[in-house]
């Protein structure tokens, strides 16, 4: 239900809408009421004013007027008084009335409104005040007994003044009445205005309330109708229906939640339908039993088919019906499996099952436990017929055993073969080693014998006094040593059949230089050679050639000099060896035919180069003597 709660509150909610409408009406009503209250207040104050001012003033003016009349009448009594007592009584009455008039004029002064009113009151009070001296004159005349004159003043001057006073009073009265009438008119206008304005306000409030109510209820009703329609569709099973709402209030959330619910429900139904389809079409047989009593509540078509039952036939039967009797009876087997499933939640293994027709076969079963909403705790068992697999396994096992035996036999044979081969190899190696040792021994003996020959030649030379013979024997000794040097180098080499040209020739030439040089002469050697490995067949003639050429140079090239340079440069290219020998001596005399000389040395050089190395040789006498010998490198031998 997490998805449902995830629907967000967007837009104006119903509560907010209602509150805003209510507040709007309340505000309008408040404004209207406020207006009415202020206007009523004004009316009330107007009424109070009317009562307090124009009406009071009118009443006071009237009362004052009455008392003025009374004063005037009493003045008549004064004039007509027959005794002093009557006179004094009348005077006293006049004075009393005068006080009353003053008190009323004071009321008028206090209550009269407007400057005009105040002026009128003042004028009236002044007139009343001015009457007093007239009255006093009358009283004085009366006291003196001058009654007629007093009467005449009262009737004449006194009456005129009273008349004036009365007129002023009348004016004052009219003024107050006018003021009262104006105020009344004003209050009437106010009342009419208040009634009109209030009526407009009420009409406005009602209109607003109606419009708001209409739109609000329409919006709510539409949404509710959509929701009801949606719920009806859902109830019909149309879970793909979607409730569409335009509003964004709580009702739209309800609609969205309902849509979501329908969607989830559809998903669940789809999944259930898929699972049901899977169960129906599974290659494995599946059945469900109640955990409490082992009664089958469902079996899929494959299971029914596998065991030879009709659709639904197994429902209600005890599970032991599908187990074949082995060493244990089917009930016991069933009991053991169910106990294990109850304890650990699952069981898997192979069971011997039985079909409806009594045929037994092996199945692989996976049993697990779960809670079903209708059947309570149930066990689900997935069965696979493993008869074919078992037979195949047996075949594989037999084949494996057979293969292992073959491999074992072959291994024994191979081990024997290897042992034999090792023995042969050891024999060959031993034989090779023996041959190598023998060869080394031979080279050693050859070398030793050559030493003996060299010694013999030396000893022989000792017995001659002739330098020519001594030299000839020394030359022969050097030739033997040149040949011995080949064996010496072979002895050092790895394969006993070829030698490295550079160390061989260098050592040989240095040895010859030692044998010829006296202390006073210094002949330098410049020796350069590529890394060339040469066979014993070519090494001996090359050694002899170099021996003869070096000896020849040492004997003849430097007759008057005690120093000079002998250069030997050996290169090889494309299977050819180039031996370039030169000295910076006096050069070969023209008289000597170097190819057919009297001396043995040069004869040997030409013959060895051409007939033993099968190469070419040429001589140049130019700034010393140059010999160039070219021959094929190791012919018939690939080193």
């Amino acid at each position, binding site marked *: 239900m997490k998805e449902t709660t995830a629907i967000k509150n967007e837009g104006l909610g119903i509560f907010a809408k209602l509150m805003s409408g209510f507040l709007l009406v309340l505000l309008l009503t408040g404004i209207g009421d406020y207006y009415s209250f202020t206007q009523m207040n004004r009316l009330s104050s107007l009424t109070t004013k009317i009562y307090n001012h124009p009406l009071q003033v009118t009443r006071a003016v009237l009362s004052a007027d009455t008392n003025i009349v009374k004063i005037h009448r009493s003045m008549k009594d004064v004039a007509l008084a027959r005794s002093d007592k009557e006179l004094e009584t009348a005077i006293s009455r006049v004075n009393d009335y005068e006080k009353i008039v003053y008190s009323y004029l004071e009321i008028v002064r206090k209550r009269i409104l407007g400057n005009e009113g105040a002026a009128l009151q003042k004028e009236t009070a002044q007139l009343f005040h001015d009457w007093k001296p007239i009255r006093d004159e009358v009283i004085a005349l009366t006291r003196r007994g001058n009654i007629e004159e007093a009467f005449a003043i009262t009737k004449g001057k006194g009456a005129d003044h009273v008349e004036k006073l009365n007129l002023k009073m009348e004016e004052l009265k009219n003024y107050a009445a006018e003021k009262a009438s104006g105020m009344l008119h004003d209050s009437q206008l106010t009342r009419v205005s208040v009634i009109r304005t209030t009526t407009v306000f009420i009409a406005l409030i009602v209109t607003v309330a109606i419009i708001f109510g209409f739109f609000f209820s329409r919006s709510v009703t539409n949404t509710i109708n959509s929701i009801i329609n949606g719920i009806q569709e859902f109830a019909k099973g149309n879970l793909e229906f979607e409730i569409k709402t335009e509003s964004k209030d709580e009702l739209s959330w309800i609609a969205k939640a309902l849509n979501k619910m329908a969607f989830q429900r559809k998903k669940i139904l789809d999944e259930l339908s898929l699972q049901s389809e899977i169960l129906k079409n599974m290659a494995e047989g599946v059945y469900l039993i109640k955990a409490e009593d082992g009664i089958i509540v469902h079996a899929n078509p494959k299971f029914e088919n596998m065991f030879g039952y009709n659709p639904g036939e197994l429902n209600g039967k005890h599970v032991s019906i599908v187990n074949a009797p082995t060493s244990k009876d089917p009930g016991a087997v069933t009991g053991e499996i169910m106990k294990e499933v109850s304890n650990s939640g699952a069981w898997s293994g192979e069971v011997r099952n039985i079909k409806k027709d009594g045929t037994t076969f092996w199945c692989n079963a996976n049993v697990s436990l779960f809670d079903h909403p209708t059947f309570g705790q149930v066990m689900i068992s997935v069965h696979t017929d493993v008869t074919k697999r078992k037979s195949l396994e047996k075949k594989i096992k037999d084949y494996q055993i057979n293969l292992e035996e073959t491999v074992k036999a072959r291994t024994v044979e191979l081990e024997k073969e290897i042992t034999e081969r090792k023995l042969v190899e050891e024999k060959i190696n031993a034989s090779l080693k023996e041959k190598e040792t023998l060869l080394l021994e031979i080279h*050693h003996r050859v*070398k*030793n014998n*050559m*030493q*003996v020959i*060299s*010694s*013999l030649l*030396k*000893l022989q030379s*000792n017995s001659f006094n002739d330098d020519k013979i001594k030299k000839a024997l020394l030359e022969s*000794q*050097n030739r*033997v*040593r040149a040949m*011995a040097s080949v064996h*010496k180098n072979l*002895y*050092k080499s790895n394969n006993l059949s070829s030698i490295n040209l550079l160390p061989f020739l260098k050592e040989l030439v240095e*040895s010859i230089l*030692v*044998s010829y*040089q006296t202390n006073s002469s210094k002949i330098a050697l410049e020796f350069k050679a590529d890394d060339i490995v040469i066979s014993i067949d070519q090494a001996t003639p090359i050694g002899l050639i170099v021996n003869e050429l070096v000896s020849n140079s040492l004997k003849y090239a430097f007759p008057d000099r005690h120093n000079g340079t002998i250069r030997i440069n050996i290169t090889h290219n494309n299977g050819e060896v180039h031996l370039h020998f030169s000295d910076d001596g006096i050069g070969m005399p023209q008289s000597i035919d170097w190819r057919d000389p009297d001396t043995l040395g040069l004869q040997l050089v030409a013959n060895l180069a051409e007939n033993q190395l099968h190469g070419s040789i040429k001589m140049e006498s130019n700034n010393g003597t140059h010999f160039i010998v070219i021959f094929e490198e190791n012919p018939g031998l690939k080193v």
Partner: protein
Amino acid sequence: MSQKSVLIVEDEIITAMEIKSCLKNFGYKVIGIVDSGENAIKRLAENGINLVLMDINLKGSMDGIETTEIIHSKYGVQIVFLTAFEEKENAIRSRFSFPFGFLSKPFNEKELKAALDKLR
């Protein structure tokens, strides 16, 4: 300088003769030629031998190296080794720390002279 007395230990008698001839020319006094280590030890017991020309391969049960070990510690004589087995040079050099001469066969008179001169 007094004349040095030399013993030649060499089983190849012709080679020994040449050496003797050369040594004479160089002014050495050759006391004798023996062909085995045993004989060399016997001869060294006689006084007055300063230098031994020692071949490596000898007759008898001892070779030149073994003979040298005995005679050098006992008599302190100078040694010049002579051998056709050049590869023995390293073995000899690692065996003995005293100064000695070394000559590989075949050699000539000048080479022998040079080897002897080095020991002087």
